[in-house]
């Protein structure tokens, strides 16, 4: 109910409500974006974009939906759009260096990752994107396979397959990192 109250106040132009929504969800969305993209800079841009668009949407945003689901879906869509734009750019400029995911620290960086998140970020980049998305939404956001299937516009059995293969590979990657 807290979210509904925040949205209601946000729609009425209350800045404190926007502040509370930002404080409540920024960490969660950053983590989601880092695991999906494997790149901290890109993740910061994505989460900023999500909040900027949300802030501009007060008149259009409905009261009935879930704020959490809205922000998660926006983040996932934003990640997909970035990937699509990047792949187009790579096709247009073949001599351009491949995008290398990184979390290298900058003085003006928004987030600092814990050691576990750093391991996860690194391991997840070795998985195909669709598997990465399924695992992230299941593990980080506790979404059901049915909900993920809806988001990926595919069948539950496909999502289940992506989840199973992804988990097997991730387990082996994390075990090898732990052992190393």
């Amino acid at each position, binding site marked *: 109910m807290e979210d509904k109250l925040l949205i209601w106040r946000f729609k*009425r132009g209350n800045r*404190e409500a926007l502040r509370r929504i930002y404080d409540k969800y920024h960490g969660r969305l950053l983590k989601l974006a880092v695991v999906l993209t494997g790149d901290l800079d890109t993740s910061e841009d994505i989460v900023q974009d999500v909040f900027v668009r949300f*802030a501009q949407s007060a008149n259009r945003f409905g009261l009935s939906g879930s704020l959490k689901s809205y922000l998660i879906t926006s983040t996932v869509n934003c990640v997909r759009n970035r990937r699509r734009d990047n792949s187009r750019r790579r096709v247009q400029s073949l001599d351009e260096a491949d995008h290398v995911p990184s979390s290298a620290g900058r003085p003006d960086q*928004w987030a600092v990752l*814990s050691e576990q998140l750093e391991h*996860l970020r690194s391991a997840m980049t070795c998985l195909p994107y669709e598997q990465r998305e399924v695992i992230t939404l299941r*593990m980080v956001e506790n979404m059901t396979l049915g909900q993920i299937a809806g988001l990926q516009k595919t069948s539950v059995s496909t999502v289940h397959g992506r989840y199973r293969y992804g988990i097997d590979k991730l387990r082996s990657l994390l075990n090898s990192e732990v052992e190393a």
Partner: protein
Amino acid sequence: MKSAEDIKRYFQQATLSTNPDRHEAIFEKIQRAQAESKTTVPASHRPHYRSNIMKSPITKLAAAAVIILAIGLSINVLDKTTPAAYALGQTVEANHTVHSLRITDFKSGEDEPKEFWLQFDEQGQIESVRAYMPEWDSPSDGAKIVIWQDGKAQIWFKKKNGLLTVSEQQFAEQMLGLARQVDPRPAMERLYEQEKQGKVKVEIDEPSDSTQSIAVTATYEPEGSRPGRRVVLLVDRATKLVTAMEVFQLKDDEYQQVGRTEFHDYNQAIDPRLFTLEDEIPADVMRVDQTTQEVGLAQGDLSDEEVAVEVARRFFTALIAEDYAAAGQLLEGIPADKMQEMFGSTKVLRIISIGPAGPHPIPETKGLVVPCTVEVRKNGQISEWKLDRLGVRQVYNQPGRWTIFGGI
């Protein structure tokens, strides 16, 4: 790391921290986006006033009018940025003009609201009350209508088809307490005082759109008397009276709504027939008037627990003897013929066990519970009748006398 659960735990432990300066800078950018989205009009949509209007003296006058209008609008825009003009004291003040209202009180998870009509006298004291209490409020009683007027209360138990009349002060207090719980006037005064004492944090939203209500959010301080409670009040802009109140309670780090109360028809005359039940009750209703009849058993030297057990024992003894008048006197004064109608088909044979008395599970009843098991014969079959919640309490308007109450 073996199972998916291990991996999930790993995900949960994976965290990040944010740089506070950068965090603030990004929020400022987001805020600017919010502000710009309200004011930005695409260039292609902007009207070209000057090129259109400066062609004749008439249009020059019109241009002047436009400029004056624009100045007026800009003043309005500036007004929107000034601090909220509304304060709780205005509602407290407006409440002094209220002499009647209707209230609907919703509880989370229940469709049917409680409904109240309140009328106040010239001093602002509650003069008349009509309350509809749905079955969910007291499943054993069923739905009931309560009328309070002229120092007497009448309670119509619809399911039991009974009409109880009482006039004792204790009941009056209980009845008025019920009305006060939903009366917005004392609630606002309490909130106003608590705000002044720093016991609640009050935030006021006064939207620039004059058709929208003022929203008052009161959050109780964690160390106060009601930690985790939050109340949102909607206030009519013109009258400054509260039109709705939503109550939230902090649970699992989220404020969850527990109730909503709506206030309607301020100062609209209430039909006097609403404060009498005579036109509504069925002709065969069972009338119990405790203002004229001695009810229950005198306590004498017995303790509360002892008299409660004694009332229950005498009640069943009277039923065994088929003395329905005596049994009815111990059951809130129900008339003998009604008692015979209620218990005639069930013959109580003997008391198997009775007592000891303990506290009633609903403390507001101020009663005790006497567990009883009796042997009965019904339709030729003998069986045990186990009563876990036989309630006994003091008669409302007859101090020192005790009666069985509620369902048997």
